[in-house]
C-alpha cells in the first residue's frame, strides 16, 4: 500500500517536471508553427504577399481578413536587412517575430511618422560592429536588433472596406526587404584620418 502511494506521488512529481519541460520545449520542437508553415510559401530575404484569408485557405489561424498581408522571412547571417514599406491609405503596420514566433517589435505608420516605413534589421553583433558615424546613427535611421538571426517580418495594410483591398495589396507590393550588399561605411573610410 505504501509502495503504491509512493509510486503515485513520485509519478505525479515527475509528471510536473515532464509538464514544465514540455511547455518550455514546445516552441523549439513544434513542427506546425507559423514559421514552418510559411517557409514553403515564402522567399528568403524578400517580400512575399500572402493569399487573402478565406475559409479553408488561410495559411495561419486567426488571420484578420480585413488586412492584406505580406511576409519577409529573413536570415541575417549574410548581413543586415533593409526594409522599406510605403504607407497605405488607412493603416499599415510592420511586426517582427523571431524564429520561435516571439513578437519582439512592432511599429505602425503613425509611430513611424513618415510616408515610408524604413528600418534596418540586424543582429546585436552586427549592430555593435556599426561605425559610430554621425551620419549612420542619425535619428531618422531606425535600427532594430533581432534576437535571432532568422525570423519573420509581417507587413500588414488595412483595407477599411472590401473594395479597398486591391489598393492595400498594391501598397504592400511596393514594399521591399533585402540584404544590404554594400559593406558598412567604416570599410571605406580609414578611421585614423578624422
Amino acid at each position: 500500500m505504501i509502495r503504491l502511494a509512493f509510486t503515485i506521488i513520485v509519478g505525479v512529481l515527475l509528471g510536473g517536471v515532464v509538464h514544465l519541460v514540455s511547455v518550455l520545449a514546445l516552441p523549439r520542437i513544434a513542427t506546425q508553427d507559423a514559421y514552418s508553415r510559411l517557409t514553403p510559401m515564402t522567399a528568403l530575404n524578400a517580400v512575399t504577399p500572402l493569399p487573402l484569408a478565406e475559409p479553408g485557405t488561410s495559411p495561419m489561424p486567426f488571420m484578420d481578413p480585413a488586412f492584406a498581408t505580406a511576409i519577409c522571412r529573413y536570415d541575417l547571417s549574410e548581413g543586415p536587412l533593409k526594409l522599406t514599406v510605403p504607407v497605405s491609405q488607412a493603416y499599415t503596420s510592420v511586426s517582427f517575430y523571431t524564429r520561435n514566433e516571439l513578437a519582439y517589435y512592432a511599429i505602425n505608420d503613425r509611430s513611424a511618422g513618415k510616408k515610408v516605413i524604413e528600418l534596418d534589421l540586424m543582429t546585436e553583433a552586427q549592430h555593435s560592429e556599426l561605425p559610430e558615424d554621425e551620419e549612420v546613427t542619425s535619428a531618422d535611421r531606425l535600427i532594430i536588433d533581432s534576437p535571432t538571426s532568422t525570423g519573420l517580418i509581417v507587413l500588414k495594410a488595412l483595407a477599411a472596406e472590401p473594395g479597398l483591398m486591391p489598393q492595400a495589396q498594391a501598397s504592400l507590393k511596393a514594399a521591399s526587404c533585402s540584404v544590404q550588399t554594400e559593406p558598412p561605411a567604416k570599410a571605406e573610410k580609414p578611421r585614423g584620418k578624422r
Partner: protein
Amino acid sequence: MRLLFITLMTLLIATGVGVGATWITTTRGTEFGTLTIGAWTARPKTGTSDVDPYARATITRNGELPIGTGDGVAFTATTDDKKKPLDGRCDVVVSGVTPPARFWTLTLYDNKGHLVANTLQRYGFTSQEIVRGADGTLEIHIASRSRSGNWLPTGGIERYALMLRLYDTPVGVATRTQRDAPMPAIATVGCP
C-alpha cells in the same frame, strides 16, 4: 521484478500527468497575464518579449502569429455576457462602444481559428464599415439568417469565437478595467 514494475508504473504516471497537463494548458489556455472585460479576454503580453511560457507554447502549437504590442491588441470572446457559449444558430447582438483605437476589426472564427464560409463573403466588420446609431454606438447582429443593419453571418455553425482587434490603441499591457477599455456587450437574444 517488483522494482521494475514500480518504476514502469511511476514513469507511466509521470508521462500521463506531464503530457496531459501540457495538452490542457496549451489548448484551453491559462490565466497568466489575461485581461478580462465582460465576455472578452485579451493577453496583451503575447505581443511583447515578456510573453509567458504557456502562451508561447500555445502560439507555436497553433501556428499563429500574435499581434505585436506596437500594432494593436486582440480581444476574444467565446461566450456571451452570461457565460453562454456563442451558438451560430442563435441570434447574438454585440452592442455598445469600443475602446479608443484608430481602427478596429471584428471577425468571426470557428473553433480552430478559420473563417466561416458564407454566401455574402462577409467574415467581419472594420470600424469604417459599420453603420452606427445617432449616438455613435454600434449594434451588430450575428445570426445565421440575414438581419437588418450590421449583419454578420455565422453559417449556422454550432460554436464560434469573436475576435475584436484594436489597432493603434492605448489599450495594452497597462489596461486593467472596463473604464480604460469599454468593451461592447454580447447578448444572446433568441435561439430557434
